[in-house]
């Protein structure tokens, strides 16, 4: 049986299409397949020389560009797993993540030297190394040294499908992010499903809009690399600017677009899409949250030609269900599109609280099994055990999402029964926001709820009881949260109260807060 390994895709494309462009930055800096493969071999050679071994973890605190992409492959060629983090996140959060999985090396942008103390091996990516605050006690190496290193000749036979490929950290309810461990088998089974459904060729140009720490990036990177297509890397700033993005997609003749609905809504709203030619665009994929139908209709009116798909799947399973969107969208339709049917490599089940199958059409929790389902959370055996059940001899992952099955449309997403919400495609545990609030010295009590909003999708609302004398302003709270939480978790509304409502067992009464907010 052949080994399922993401690096095999790159190596096969480098031998089939050595001179084709593999990846390109918006400023035109590009790598051919042969260059990408050669540089990744050098990164691997450097890491192995520095003592990185199979199964180790290597952190990335970097903006997205062709070098960061090279590093992903370099790390995996060294048979280590990459751990990408949001490089603009607060330092404490980055340190928590990289310490949790004990990285043996870390690649940092020189602007993030403040987090470089998490490892003895620090590789700095920047031209301005001299100007950077380079603490002398750190063993740091400039990028030039790494890419000039002798290439590693990987023992391809030693590769194993169950090797860990990457760890993606998601919001944790206790305030500490948890690492979702994904193997090469998990990723490859998903990428192969994408081949079957989207039929990519070497002439495709894939957008890479999602940051590498976000699971949407798996399709963006590995599907084009498998097929010898081109990855157009979109860094953060460009990715948030709909007007610039609109011209970028047209100018680069992007053929496959994949992102959250949030940025597609902004493109439809602010992108002035009628000014450009999008005839190359053949597929638009979205995932991560519900696409409000009004916004989707607006987008599909402006981009009528591509095929649209709604993809669904938590980080733990990769994409596991999907639904093609038939166009045009009728004016009368208001309800969001279903998440559809299980992908061919996955199985889906809807179970009641007693873990018994529900009758068709009844609500229940969605469980997924198959080769793309993760093996567990890093160093959290009890949390891992809590999300799996065994049935018919195989493990099934409890997504925590409530769905019902429609005989014609497949699964329809209903909601959640816990305190996780989705915003701009990111998972947010409201408990993690509360933990951050409690770090403020003036705050006595904090409770966080969410509320649906027609334009923003969902709003995060904080109820805070603080010492009267030192009660912070809302501006102070926003700034404090900005320093302690990633931007997508920063709450929308802060409400000060004398005390929080309690239940008869003295727990915070969230239902009462939700009622208070809705009736205000």
């Amino acid at each position: 049986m052949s080994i399922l390994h993401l690096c095999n895709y790159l190596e096969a494309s480098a031998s089939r299409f050595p001179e084709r462009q593999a990846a390109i930055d918006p400023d035109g800096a590009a790598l051919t397949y042969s260059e990408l493969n050669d540089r990744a071999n050098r990164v691997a050679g450097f890491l192995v020389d520095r003592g990185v071994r199979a199964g180790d973890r290597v952190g990335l605190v970097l903006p997205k560009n062709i070098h960061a992409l090279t590093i992903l492959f370099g790390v995996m060629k060294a048979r280590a797993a990459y751990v990408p983090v949001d490089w603009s996140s607060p330092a404490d959060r980055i340190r928590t993540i990289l310490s949790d999985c004990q990285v043996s090396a870390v690649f940092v942008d020189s602007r993030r030297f403040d987090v470089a103390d998490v490892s003895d091996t620090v590789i700095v990516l920047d031209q301005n190394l001299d100007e950077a605050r380079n603490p002398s006690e750190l063993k740091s190496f400039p990028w030039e040294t790494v890419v000039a290193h002798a290439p590693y000749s990987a023992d391809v036979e030693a590769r194993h499908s169950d090797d860990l490929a990457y760890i993606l950290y998601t919001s944790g309810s206790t305030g500490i992010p948890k690492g979702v461990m994904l193997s090469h088998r998990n990723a490859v089974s998903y990428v192969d499903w994408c081949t079957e459904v989207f039929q990519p060729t070497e002439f495709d140009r894939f957008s890479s809009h999602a940051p590498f720490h976000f699971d949407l990036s798996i399709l963006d990177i590995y599907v084009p690399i498998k097929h010898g297509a081109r990855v157009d890397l979109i860094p953060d700033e460009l990715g948030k600017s709909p007007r610039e993005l609109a011209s970028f997609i047209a100018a680069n003749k992007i053929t496959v677009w994949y992102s959250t609905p949030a940025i597609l809504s902004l493109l439809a709203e602010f992108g002035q899409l009628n000014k450009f030619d999008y005839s190359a665009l053949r597929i638009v994929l979205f995932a991560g949250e519900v696409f409000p139908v009004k916004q989707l209709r607006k987008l599909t009116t402006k981009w009528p030609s591509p095929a649209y798909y709604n993809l669904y799947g938590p980080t733990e399973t990769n994409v596991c269900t999907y639904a093609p969107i038939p166009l045009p969208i009728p004016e009368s339709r208001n309800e969001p599109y279903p998440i559809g049917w299980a992908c061919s490599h996955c199985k889906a089940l809807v179970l009641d609280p007693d873990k018994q199958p529900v009758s068709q059409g009844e609500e229940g929790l969605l469980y997924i099994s198959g080769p793309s389902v993760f093996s567990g959370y890093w160093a959290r055996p009890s949390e891992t055990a809590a999300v799996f059940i065994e049935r018919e001899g195989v493990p099934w992952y409890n997504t925590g999402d409530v769905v019902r099955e429609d005989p014609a449309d497949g699964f329809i997403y209903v909601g959640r029964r816990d305190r996780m919400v989705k915003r701009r495609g990111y998972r947010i545990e409201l408990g993690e926001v509360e933990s951050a609030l409690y770090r403020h010295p003036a705050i006595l009590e904090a409770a966080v709820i969410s509320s649906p909003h027609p334009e923003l999708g969902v709003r995060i609302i904080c109820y805070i009881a603080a010492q009267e004398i030192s009660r912070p302003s809302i501006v102070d709270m926003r700034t404090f949260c900005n320093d302690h939480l990633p931007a997508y978790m920063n709450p929308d509304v802060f409400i000060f109260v004398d005390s929080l409502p309690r239940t008869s067992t003295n727990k915070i009464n969230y239902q009462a807060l939700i009622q208070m907010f809705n009736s205000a």
Partner: protein
Amino acid sequence: MTTENMKEEIRQYILTEFLPGEKAANLRDDTPLRTSGILDSVATLRLVTFVEERFGIQVEAHEASVENFDSINSISAFIESKKTGAS
């Protein structure tokens, strides 16, 4: 419209849309908006659209930058420079 009136309108818009419940006094002319997290990228887009419609200027994509939109002071200076440039 005076500069002060313009700043007041921007302040009221930001308070209503992005800082519900906040006192006007806590949002000073020099309070950082972008770098403090008061405005994220989506909020900035909405503010840019408001500024375009309310003050009759066209903001180019590259002009919706942190320099031009990081405080009420910088936004009003930017609007005034656009209006002067246009006349």
